[in-house]
């Protein structure tokens, strides 16, 4: 179309502006505690869609593949790490994962993860969003994607929660703050500011609220705008939430047999994070990310750090699998372990391993995933992918598929740019935008 048709341009321009304003209104009114409308019925893809919940363990720093899920004992890169039989012929995990070795019939590994970024920030961004970090947009992470594409799961509780990591990361990205994961700093402390502060008893609180309502009455009467109304609604909802039992989901200390469970899950942020995640799944929350660091093992890898980190992960995963099974939640809860990259097979001068995005491993269990298998292969020394490469987009496509998300559903950012949950490309034949990431189908047979 070479002829400049002003009317037509006007019309199109109008559309883009409407989309923008529409979203702006949504953001102003939608809040983590307000129901976002009933879950829309989505296409349940073949074999997927069984995971109503997902617990995503993110191992920050770059989890060494050779010393966890892809051991190379006896080779020049294996280091001091020995292998451990899993009961599946030909598949071993490292000696630091005894719990997983025992439960391997429920576990599916990916040993051919690969991506291009060697920096922590960039790699983590890729794994969380399926996109490269760029300066003009922030892409959403999986929890907000799920809420956007599947609808809100619970009426009052938030859809996604992030435990640990200080609330950092891309969060809801362009989907807006209303869909941002609720941050939990310390699993033992739960939601920030949920309880009355010291020195304020119920009587004082009542008197303060009475004061607030009186002092504010003239203003609220005069300005009955949507924004003021929205804030008043937040106050009502929050006050209700504070006194309701819903918030108890976040109170880990209320967990029956707390001490016994801490022993099984591990007495640390990771173990307690997993414990809280389990509690939140039982309460109906859809997506929980548990962030844990300490994997950037540049030096002295066998001097205690691999034992501590891998040990904590092994304990947390084992206890989680056991408890989900005991409660009949395992089949509807996907457990994933991800990280930004692996670590160099070559052991450096300081007895550590450096960044290695070329090949690394991730972990899947539950939520309809067929256990007892390892997908893809690294080469003999753990240097590169030998078979079936899986990039961050495929990784996220696998999670999304398990959760019943349509990989090809386009979502437009406020600027009008189209995005998909597992990355996108243009289909040369149809000129349509389609998913770039492909799920690991053998996991769903």
């Amino acid at each position: 179309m070479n002829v400049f048709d002003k009317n037509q341009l006007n019309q199109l321009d109008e559309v883009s502006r409407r989309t923008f304003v529409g979203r702006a209104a949504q953001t102003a009114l939608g809040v983590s505690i307000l129901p976002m409308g009933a879950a829309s019925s989505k296409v349940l893809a073949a074999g997927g869609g069984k995971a109503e919940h997902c617990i995503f363990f993110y191992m920050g720093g770059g989890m060494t593949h050779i010393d966890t899920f892809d051991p190379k004992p006896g080779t020049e890169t294996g280091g001091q790490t020995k292998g451990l039989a899993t009961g599946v012929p030909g598949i071993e995990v490292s000696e630091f994962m005894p719990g997983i070795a025992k439960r391997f019939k429920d576990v599916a590994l990916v040993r051919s993860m690969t991506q291009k970024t060697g920096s922590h920030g960039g790699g983590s961004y890729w794994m969380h969003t399926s996109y490269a970090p760029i300066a003009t947009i922030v892409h959403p992470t999986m929890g907000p994607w799920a809420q956007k594409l599947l609808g809100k799961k619970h009426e009052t509780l938030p859809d996604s929660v992030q435990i640990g990591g200080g609330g950092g990361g891309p969060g809801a990205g362009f989907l807006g703050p209303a869909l941002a994961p609720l941050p939990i700093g310390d699993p033992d402390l739960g939601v920030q500011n949920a309880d009355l502060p010291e020195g304020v008893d119920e009587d004082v609180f009542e008197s303060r609220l009475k004061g607030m309502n009186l002092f504010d009455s003239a203003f609220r009467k005069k300005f009955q705008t949507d924004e003021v109304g929205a804030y008043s609604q937040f106050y009502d909802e929050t006050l209700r939430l504070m006194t309701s039992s819903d918030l108890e989901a976040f109170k880990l200390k209320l967990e029956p047999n707390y001490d016994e469970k801490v022993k099984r899950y591990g007495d640390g942020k990771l173990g307690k994070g997993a414990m809280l995640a389990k509690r939140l799944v039982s309460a109906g929350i859809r997506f929980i990310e548990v962030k844990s660091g300490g994997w950037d093992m540049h030096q002295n890898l066998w001097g205690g750090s691999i034992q501590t980190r891998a040990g904590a992960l092994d304990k947390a995963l084992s206890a989680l699998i056991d408890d989900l099974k005991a409660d009949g939640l395992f089949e509807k809860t996907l457990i994933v372990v991800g990280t930004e990259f692996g670590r160099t097979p070559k052991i450096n001068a300081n007895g550590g391993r450096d960044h290695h995005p070329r090949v690394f491993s991730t972990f899947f269990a539950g939520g309809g995933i067929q256990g007892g298998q390892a997908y893809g292969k690294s080469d003999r020394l753990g240097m590169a992918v030998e078979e079936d490469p899986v990039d961050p987009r495929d990784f996220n496509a696998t999670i999304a598929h398990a959760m019943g998300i349509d990989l090809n559903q386009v979502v437009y950012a406020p600027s009008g740019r189209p995005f998909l949950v597992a990355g996108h490309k243009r289909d040369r034949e149809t000129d349509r935008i389609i998913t770039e990431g492909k799920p690991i189908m053998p996991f769903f047979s």
Partner: protein
Amino acid sequence: MDRYRSLLFVVCSLVVATTSSLRAEMREWTSSDGRKLQAEFVGAVGAGSTARVKLRLANGNEILYPVAKLGEADRVFVKSSLPTDPAALAAEIDRLVMAKLKSSYYELKQELAELPENKYLDHAQKLKRKEEIEREMVMCAPNPLTTDEQFMRRIYLDIAGRIPTYDEASRFLASRQRDKRARLIDELLDTEAFAMRMFNYYSDLLRVREGLTMGGSDMKVDPYIEWLKQCARDDKPFDRMVSEMLTAEGYIWDNPAAGYLITDSGMELCNLSNTFTVFLGTEITCAQCHDHPFEQVKQIDFYRMATFMGTTSSRGKPPVMMMASTDEPEGGKKSKRKGKKKDSGKSEVKRMSEILDAAGMLGNRDTDRTLGDINGTRNYYVNDRGKQTVSLPHDYKYDNGEPHQQLRPAVYFGDPVNVERHASPREAYAQWMTAKTNPRFTINLVNRLWKMAFGYGQIEPVDNIPGHLDGQAQNYELLKFLESLMQDKNFQIKEFFRVVYNTQTYQREAETLTPSLTQVDNGTYHFPGPILRRMTAEQLWDSLVALTTDRPEEIRREGAADYQEFMHFDTSELTTAKQIVAYKERWRSLGSLTKGEGMKLEKGDGRIGKATMVRASEMSLPQKPGHFLRMFGQSDKNLIEGQYDAGSSPQVMALLNGSITNQVLSSPDGYLVNEVAFGEDRKGDKVDKIFLSVLGRTPSAAESQMAASMLNARLDRDAKEKVQRTQLAAGVGDVIWALVNTREFMFIQ
């Protein structure tokens, strides 16, 4: 036509012609298109680009004629009689707003009358439209003027970025000067608070953050921060400011404006999109990958534009001898490479690391991490390298170019640019961008500033100004007036604001209805008053700071001078481990808070309990995700205008139960609590004092009574004096808590 009639009506009712010494002299007038007329000059009506002359014809009739349509000689003739003071220019804005409100009212009225005959709408649609029309007609009536109390709180938040302190509030309200509003505007524009407020805006717009680059270098951002504040403080013309950012050369510590290009280091194509969004209100990101679907911009246009900056690098190398510490310690070893690639200071890092190692202070690493980080910031040197790096992408699919083809730089709108006439392609780009003739540069600026003052831009969204402006803007005549006003004021933002804040339009009460999306969308909200806005996260935080101290701007972050000195320091002087450790220490302490003129803080300054209560602009950027500022929508500084004002449950919980409202604001160490509970009660009633401090108004009788009972509710008369003091402070804290939790506090009315 209705619009014409109401315009005339407004002219007659509002504006009085200014008298002039040039009066009473019959002369010949020539219009710009050459028509001539004999008339006597009566005076000027209005001001700025829409000023008119009042002429008396020989028959005694008087006519109004736009100055803009006069010939050059006549324009010069009347120039001296045209008023240029803020009040006159403000009145002109008011006239244009009133005219639009009026014409809009008549148009709506007519539409309402014709609605029953409308053939395109069914019954239900007609009912809905009727409702909309009636609602919009209500919004065509200008709101009442603000009271002094309302005006005061709003102008403080808009200019100073926070509510007034008790002293400031009582001083203004007590003043009997007739022009006290204009005086307050002048006074506030000259405060440091204004520089802080503008910086918060720039920081949101330009994504100013610690480390600055997306990869997260250890670079100190202080020079850039201080430069932006200084631009606001000195009222540097905005066109010059932008030009300096686009053409900056050097390190950030030597040339702070370089911070702008360093922000997008390694993402030069994104920088083009960002520059267009921020300075031209134009979204062209789409065109990076394909022809823009809505606007007249093709993918090839994007790359032609990008070619202007294609020879500029933010990771360039400084000319030799910029650094004192670049000599190779062992000469000759790398002499072959030395000519081509300069050692970026790595040898110094190595030398100092060896000294640390010898002293057993290096640990397991090859080189010291901090020293490496310091040296790493030398990688960001902005300059022109001469080599063009931009070409069409590998998958370019249109017929007008080939993949990988290099293009000649060219603009796709505005004045054509001849690169050869400029010192460098980016000089040409900067000049084109900031030129008065650029159809979007000034419009974008005034539209954004209008939004700051009124809550909505004349064109929404502000980052998507359509190429065809007429008919899209809320009030085209007004927008064109603002454009010429900004240019007449030489792009000085303070001067522009001085006019805008003096308008009655600004000084009216905030709109009590929410304009509908259709209204915003179609540009039919015509500003009967400003929109009711929620405070930005920074306004909210800074207002809380103003409750804890009577000198909220005293504590400042000042680190640029130290940083520059540090980076110029010749490290070859450092020969012992002790010296090197001290050097590293110094690096860590750069950019800390000071109390005026570089004076270090004393213990407890700016702190209440565990909280640092200083203005948001002086704190780390952005704050950590759990901080109060972030919770209320401070941008994470990754995206242009990433801040938000939407509510959430965590916000409410923070206000109800968090430490700021429960410990900080009720702490006896805080200014307000201390003054009210223990100060000499010289300035009247305790309750009045709290209300004036928090809400900027006096309480009603019922409010007074309630607050007074809350003040004393915790008091046990039989308790020891020390206990009573704590109880009294807690009572004051309760009232403050209740006031800070009101919507009235959080919104700007």
